[in-house]
């Protein structure tokens, strides 16, 4: 019985596979932005600028890696920027104002981050309230908490060798944040692509009922993604203090847009079921590069918000069109 052969069952060529890869679009976008950047400004392709760009991008990339997990299983965390900001402020508050040693301050801050993630996840999943509503509330509440803790002013970080060694220094002219980004994104990427947990996320995002029927504990897995995402965002906030030497109560304001943008540009569906960490990391580069180019060219800084907004829209529109096209090709 050799009657059922689907139309798309032709063996794929290597070029076809590359073009079809979820990250193809984002790589094209990066190449395009770099070409424009190099032709517009001679200061772009300078070693120090490249290190600065990557360093700036590292925070968004780490947050985007974590939130990719949330997005792939069909949820979203809009409070991620506020969590990132709270991480920075909480760490400096604990280490400076409460005068705790560095490591306990870091650990307590991370525990708080994980707890916030659990709360976001628990309320969304267990009470069945859309996560964008729950985390939108979190966005506001956590920002308020951050302002209250810091009394609305920057807190300067405590001098500490331990802290500098962890997140402040550089190696071979490359900032430690870049290494953290590479390490964390790789770990999250491997977990997503190679473990049962990662597979469960794609299953939940692709067909929640099927995942449930297959014995996957959907609620538990979803809440875990919120916790991981929040953990990484908190850590990114602590890392930021290592770079800037202080925390600012407005840190992370609007960062949720950059993070959502990175994930969308990276080829993930914001409706769940698809996406990769490599894509999200590269997506963070697209946003970061555009911002950097606009700054170097001397455009009014507010244009970066416009550019990022348009970038998200373009990414979502293109993703949707590509998916629809694939679907019509199949049927």
């Amino acid at each position, binding site marked *: *019985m*050799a*009657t*059922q*052969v*689907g*139309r*798309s*069952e032709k063996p794929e060529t290597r070029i076809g596979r590359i073009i079809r890869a979820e990250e193809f679009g984002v790589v094209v976008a990066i190449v395009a932005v770099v070409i424009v950047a190099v032709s517009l400004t001679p200061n772009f392709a300078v070693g120090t600028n490249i290190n600065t760009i990557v360093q700036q991008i590292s925070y968004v990339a780490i947050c985007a890696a974590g939130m990719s997990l949330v997005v792939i299983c069909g949820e979203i965390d809009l409070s991620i920027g506020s969590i990132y900001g709270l991480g920075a402020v909480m760490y400096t508050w604990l280490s400076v104002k409460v005068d705790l040693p560095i490591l306990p301050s870091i650990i307590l801050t991370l525990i708080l981050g994980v707890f916030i993630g659990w709360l976001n996840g628990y309320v969304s999943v267990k009470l069945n309230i859309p996560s964008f509503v729950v985390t939108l509330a979190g966005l506001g509440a956590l920002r308020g908490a951050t302002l209250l803790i810091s009394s609305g002013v920057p807190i300067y970080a405590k001098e500490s060798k331990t802290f500098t060694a962890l997140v402040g220094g550089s190696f071979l002219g490359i900032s430690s944040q870049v290494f953290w980004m590479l390490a964390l994104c790789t770990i999250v990427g491997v977990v997503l692509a*190679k*473990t*049962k947990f*990662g*597979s*469960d996320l*794609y*299953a939940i*995002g*692709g*067909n929640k*009922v*099927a*995942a449930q*029927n*297959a*014995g*996957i504990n959907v609620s538990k897995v979803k809440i875990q993604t919120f916790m991981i995402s929040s953990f990484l965002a908190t850590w990114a906030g602590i890392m930021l203090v290592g770079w800037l030497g202080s925390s600012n109560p407005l840190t992370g304001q609007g960062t949720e847009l950059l993070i959502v943008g990175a994930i969308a540009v990276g080829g993930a569906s914001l409706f769940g*079921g*698809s996406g990769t960490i490599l894509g999200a990391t590269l997506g963070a580069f697209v946003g970061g590069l555009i911002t950097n180019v606009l700054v170097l060219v001397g455009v009014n800084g507010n244009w970066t918000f416009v550019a990022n907004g348009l970038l998200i829209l373009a990414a979502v529109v293109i993703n949707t069109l590509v998916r629809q096209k694939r*679907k019509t090709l*199949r049927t």
Partner: protein
Amino acid sequence: MTTAAILRAEGLAKRFGGVQALNAVDFECKAGEVVALMGDNGAGKSTLIRILCGATKPDSGQILIDGTVRSITRPQDAVTNGISVVYQDLALVGSMDVARNVFLGHELRRFGFIRISKMREEATLLLGQLKINISSSKLQVESLSGGQRQCIAIARAVRLGSDFVLLDEPTAALGPEQQANVLRIVTELRSAGKGVVLISHNIDQVLAVSDRIIVMRGGQVAGIRNTKETNTQEIVSMIVGDQSFVKHNLKNQTILSEGE
């Protein structure tokens, strides 16, 4: 895995509000047997299936495998007792490939990492054993036809080592060729020694593949027939519950088709 030979249910009853969905229903399916469940909408077929697979709790009655009473109160209990139910759209993730779907929730792992190539290998082998024609286990399920998807959903149940596979209208919404393919898988399951419970509205199909037909009406068993010893007219009359009405209609049908 269990090596059960007989799945039995005794005195199953279930009431939903004012409706007695099932009333003192006895049921039996042996290994290597295809039992068809027929009946009008609301006859109680789906409630019976849902009780057997742990999705609905009966008000009374018990489920026995090889004469031993089993407590099946959750879908997971059914799976551990070797019973699985196949709902095509509720079993597969379209955006994942064939192998990942066959192993969904039960992925092969080594040191915590998924063994995707091993899963593809085994999935290909399993599809081959069931004579399911899909060129590669790397294909995304959403690119396959409805019939192929139904076959993969069935393969998943087999992979779980189920002794009894419950199919709720597996050929509804499929084209004739795909229906034939699914029915062929049903007979493959029987040859592999599985007990198959098949809900269907299609009498021709039921007569073609089943060994026994259980007709339900109003939440009760209206009749049980060996497929070889019955015919369309008898089954229809049991489903409708009115002998003269059926005879009348069949007569009219014959006149109509002769007149065409």
